[in-house]
């Protein structure tokens, strides 16, 4: 890892850890979804940025994470956050495998449409099967124990901005580290090769379909973890988690942050959460503005915020030489 990156990361980490002491509780509860999306996007970008597959249905896996947390905590009485995460994420992977098997054979646009259809299929399922899924109200999510500790003396918000917050920061760091190793491994190299030139990579011995499947499964895992955090934060898992516009949010965040960069999605997650917070305060049609910003990004700044930063840094470097 380059020195600059290491320095920035350390600063970011310190800032993140210090936030609960500096910001109001309200603002810290904003950071929680950002952490959740950051984790989800690390996985999503493995599929999009590194493997080159643009999915419009990944909110499905976020929803699995959320509903997993809901069902396990409020219906099955499972309290351990670790178990909840594990079970939800594994469920997401199991669901991802058949979907991936069906979808990765297809050319870009049809892959996108298929994933969109799967996402909406799940949404319809969540909506319609009221007895199972709670319909449009959804299912409640109860507070889990963190490493066995229940923190009963803390009220909901204090718990969220206290122990839960720090836990999620650590989760982000750990999962981020794992993803970093993954994309810099031989597996990651082969994955990028499939994106760059599918045919040539096959002739160089790369198992394209198998690796795409793995990337898809890993992305589902990460999205489910993010989903669980989101649901615990709001205390409710509802079908909107799986609606196509939520998948659109994932896409937006990734492009905003910059999908050509490892840290882009994390930057995107935080930017999106604060951007949305501002926009929602101004208008109920915030998705319109988000769409407009996406248009501007795609046309003018395809490399996103991270890309912009890289370019500015490179220019600074050159001018000081």
């Amino acid at each position, binding site marked *: 890892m380059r020195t600059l990156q290491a320095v920035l990361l350390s600063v970011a980490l310190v800032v993140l850890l210090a936030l609960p002491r500096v910001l109001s509780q309200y603002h810290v509860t904003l950071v929680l979804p950002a952490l959740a999306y950051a984790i989800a996007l690390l996985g999503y970008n493995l599929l999009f940025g590194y493997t080159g597959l643009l999915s419009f249905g990944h909110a499905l896996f976020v929803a699995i994470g959320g509903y997993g947390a809901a069902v396990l905590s409020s219906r099955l009485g499972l309290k351990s956050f670790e178990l909840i995460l594990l079970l939800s994420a594994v469920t997401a992977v199991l669901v991802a495998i058949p979907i991936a098997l069906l979808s990765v054979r297809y050319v870009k646009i049809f892959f996108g449409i298929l994933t969109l259809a799967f996402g909406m299929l799940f949404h319809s399922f969540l909506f319609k099967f009221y007895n199972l899924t709670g319909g449009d109200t959804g299912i409640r999510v109860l507070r889990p124990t963190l490493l066995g500790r229940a923190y009963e003396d803390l009220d909901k918000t204090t718990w969220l901005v206290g122990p839960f917050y720090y836990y999620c920061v650590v989760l982000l760091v750990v999962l981020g580290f794992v993803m970093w190793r993954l994309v810099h*491994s031989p597996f990651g190299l082969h994955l990028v090769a499939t994106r760059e030139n599918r045919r040539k990579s096959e002739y160089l011995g790369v198992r394209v379909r198998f690796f795409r499947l793995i990337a898809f499964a890993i992305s589902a895992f990460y999205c489910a973890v993010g989903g669980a955090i989101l649901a615990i934060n709001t205390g409710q898992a509802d079908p909107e988690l799986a609606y196509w516009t939520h998948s659109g949010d994932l896409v937006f965040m990734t492009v905003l942050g910059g999908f050509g960069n490892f840290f882009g999605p994390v930057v995107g997650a935080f930017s999106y959460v604060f951007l949305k917070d501002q926009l929602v305060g101004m208008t109920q049609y915030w998705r319109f503005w988000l769409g407009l910003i996406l248009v501007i990004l795609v046309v003018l700044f395809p490399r996103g915020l991270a890309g912009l930063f890289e370019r500015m840094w490179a220019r600074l470097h050159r001018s000081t030489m």
Partner: protein
Amino acid sequence: MSTLLEAIDVRKSYGDFVAIDGISLAVGEGELVSIVGPNGAGKTTLVNLLTGLLPPTSGHVRFKGQDIAGIGPVMLAKHGMARAFQLVHIFPEMTVAETIAVAVVSQTGKSMRFFTPVRKDPAVNQRVREVAQIFGLERKLDTQSRLLSQGEQKLLDIASAFALAPEVILLDEPTSGVSSGDKHGLMRNVVDAARKAGVKAIILVEHDMDLVAEYSTRIVAIQAGKVLADRKPDDFFNDPEIVAAIVGKRVGRLAAGAA
């Protein structure tokens, strides 16, 4: 001399259209076999059959005794045969080192390693450097492929095929698009590299008869889906009927009477 790759009475038809009409040929160790013939004669189909991309309608294609009919590129690489294409295929955003590393990772069976950093693997790095040096690309290791010149991209394409440590390599018009001055240099590089890299046989598909004459140990001429001739270069160019059918008129070294 052991046979590495052989086609036994291979036929390929698409409905009524017969693209390959019973071709048998064998490539053995130490050989450089050139496949020549006019466009539309079936060279591409034959090559696709020989490299396991297409299954034959009848007949067999065997690599080191194993049937490789229709096995596809990934399995082909595993069996030990590599293929470089006429139109340059690169990984635009990947550097020269990374491109070669893809092949090295496949060849050393490391592709399922999820947690070791590939850039810091000394074995991979060394091999990448070796291959790059053979093709004169060692100074461009960290350059993105899309920034290379066309000639360098061609070299990289061939180099990455070599990095698979194949026993047989098939080169599909490797000098097309290369200026005539550079063609011989490229061929010489490739043949030398093959020897150094332990490649046991080369199959060459070429239009440039000068190169074919100079480097082949054997020439196979294809016409209308059949083998017209399968001879050593001297025998090949001394037969006026064959030369007329394939070349059209005497050119190059032949015209200078050097044959």
